[in-house]
């Protein structure tokens, strides 16, 4: 059983999706149990895999017993870099499934079997992207995840979500095609698609490593992944797609899609081309770090200009992607930037999840789309506010939340590599986040009473509060995921030492350097 965890992890949601496609239409009440069962199985397998990697080191799994590098096998590889991401994906998906209990396509619940089928297919693909060790399978899985997410965005009831989904589709397909083209050039040069194999060939074959075709391959793959992760200025598809889709969709896509793409970039850098090749042969780290600086500043400034909460969060994602790209490309001797980027994948996943879940609850229970609508929030929804504030503080970088520690590692990498522009950009972005979130907190705490008829349908439980601000009841299935995610933010921050030590096991340069503080 434990030997089969890598396969179970990927196949459980796939079979769940097939089952829902077959029987979901008969009885809609089947949807959620099937989703919960398959994602629960995946979470169990992911945690089991994590424990196995902790005990034994990297695990290779050959589907069907076809060992590499025959080129036809499907190789899954779990190591200390991707198992935390697998656990994150499984946990986030399970929480969002719980959050989305009744809702699916907003107004028409007859779409819920289709919605959950896409939901599970997306999870399958995300697990696959994270665990695969084959450059071409990665492309296929990226496209499976993208196709499911186009559907999940387009299923919303707003008219604009269709246009947003089409835009997303066009940019996403161009991105994936660039990646495929790069893979083609790479295959042409080294004759292999297996990631460890390519790395061995590039390390041993100087002619291939310094060829222009390999450089072209790398640039094409990188640009493709950058489009997928919405790296500034390739972010155009993200804000509309994430803000016009149903809240369950945005809380699933926003924490996972961009973060998994960042993981793909790190994997391509460390696991396919190798850090020696990137920082030795290519030597573009300064340029890319400056791109990241621009991304961080632009994302922060654009976030400041937004009036809608979800749009603001979307631009914050653009800034956070800048953090991770910059961190991964710092190239400091101790790999602290890369460590910070990997840690931030986990941290940002949890923060974004909490914020988008909160935004979904605000939109549904309060009808609050714009930041100005949130007045009196702290009294109306004290528990939701706790989660929202924790996530906000994490975005600013207040200890002991994980946001503080990821910034700490990223800044340490920036200082050690002498990239002062990046350090300044991180600090400026923290300041902007502080302005953004304290503005919201101020409105939520001191803001005037909302205008009449503004969603007071919740039960009034206020004891000792002014009559004008009644508490708005939030059902447990929406509240619990939010609070769990917020607890995750704090726990990931408190236990940052062991997590970081574990992540660093897979980084070649880091294993020799000093351990985490």
């Amino acid at each position, binding site marked *: 059983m434990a030997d089969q965890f890598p396969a179970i992890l990927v196949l459980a949601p796939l079979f769940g999706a097939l089952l829902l496609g077959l029987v979901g239409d008969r009885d809609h009440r089947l949807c959620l149990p099937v989703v919960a069962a398959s994602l629960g199985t995946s979470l169990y397998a992911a945690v089991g895999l994590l424990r196995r990697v902790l005990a034994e080191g990297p695990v290779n799994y050959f589907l069907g017993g076809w060992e590499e590098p025959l*080129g*036809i096998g499907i190789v899954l590889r779990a190591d200390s870099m991707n198992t935390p991401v697998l656990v994150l994906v499984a946990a986030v998906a399970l929480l969002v499934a719980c959050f989305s209990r009744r809702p699916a396509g907003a107004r028409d619940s007859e779409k819920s079997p289709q919605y959950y089928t896409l939901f599970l297919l997306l999870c399958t693909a995300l697990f696959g992207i994270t665990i695969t060790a084959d450059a*071409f399978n990665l*492309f*296929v899985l990226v*496209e499976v995840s993208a*196709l499911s997410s*186009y*559907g999940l965005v*387009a299923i919303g009831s707003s*008219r*604009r979500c*269709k*246009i947003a*989904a*089409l835009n997303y*589709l*066009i940019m996403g*397909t*161009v991105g994936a*095609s660039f990646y*495929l*083209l790069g893979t*083609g050039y790479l*295959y*042409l040069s080294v004759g292999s*698609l297996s990631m460890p194999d390519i790395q061995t060939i590039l390390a041993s074959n100087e002619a291939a490593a310094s060829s222009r075709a390999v450089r072209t391959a790398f640039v094409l793959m990188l640009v493709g992944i950058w489009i997928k992760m919405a790296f500034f200025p390739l972010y155009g598809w993200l804000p509309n797609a994430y803000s016009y889709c149903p809240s369950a969709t945005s809380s699933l896509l926003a924490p996972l899609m961009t973060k998994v793409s960042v993981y793909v970039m790190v994997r391509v850098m460390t696991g396919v081309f190798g850090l020696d090749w990137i920082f030795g042969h290519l030597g573009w780290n300064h340029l890319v770090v400056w791109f990241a600086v621009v991304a961080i500043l632009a994302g922060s400034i654009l976030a400041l200009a937004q009036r809608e909460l979800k749009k603001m969060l979307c631009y914050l994602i653009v800034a956070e992607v800048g953090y991770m790209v910059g961190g991964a490309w710092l190239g400091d001797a101790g790999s602290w930037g890369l460590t910070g980027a990997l840690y931030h994948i986990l941290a940002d996943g949890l923060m974004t999840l909490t914020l988008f879940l909160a935004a979904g609850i605000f939109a549904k229970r309060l009808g609050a789309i714009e930041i100005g609508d949130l007045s009196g929030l702290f009294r109306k929804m004290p528990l939701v506010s706790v989660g929202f504030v924790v996530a906000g503080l994490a975005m600013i970088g207040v200890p002991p939340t994980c946001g503080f520690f990821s910034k700490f590692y990223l800044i340490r990498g920036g200082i050690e590599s002498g990239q002062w522009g990046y350090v300044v950009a991180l600090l400026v972005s923290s300041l902007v986040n502080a302005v953004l979130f304290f503005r919201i907190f101020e409105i939520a705490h001191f803001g005037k009473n909302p205008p009449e008829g503004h969603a007071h349908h919740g039960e009034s439980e206020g004891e000792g509060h002014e009559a004008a601000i009644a508490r708005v009841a939030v059902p447990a299935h929406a509240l619990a995921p939010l609070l769990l995610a917020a607890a995750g933010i704090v726990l990931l921050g408190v236990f940052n030492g062991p997590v970081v030590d574990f992540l660093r096991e897979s980084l070649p340069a880091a294993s020799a350097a000093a351990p985490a503080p």
Partner: protein
Amino acid sequence: MAEFLWKTIGHHFNFWVYIVLLMLGLWATIAKNNLVKKLMGLSIFQSAIILLYVSIGTKEGATIPILDHHGHIPSESHHADVGPEIAAHGVANPLPHVLMLTAIVVGVATLGVALSLVQAIYRDFGTVEEDELLREIKSLHPDG
């Protein structure tokens, strides 16, 4: 001159065609105003990449990589005594072609999703011209 052209273009004819198609597709995807034309561009763009992969796998004078029960290539009976390893130069590389089967399926699925989205947009807005859609959206949300 003719010899130069033959050397640069004739020998790599597939690759030149692939680049022309790639640029054509990308241009149409970006510049066309009609959503269906954009999708046509996207399809051309994807097909160009498929052409590149297929060109990688072929070899001049090579045959299809199918072995008979004895491990020989049926059409090349004179290789019968040397075995399949030696005959590798005589067969096309099947891997890129197999990969492209998957990529074609991905492309078809993408196009299907995209066309159904365009249909939904047409139902909602009554147009598939991008500038008209933008005007429509502006009139819905005058402030942004």
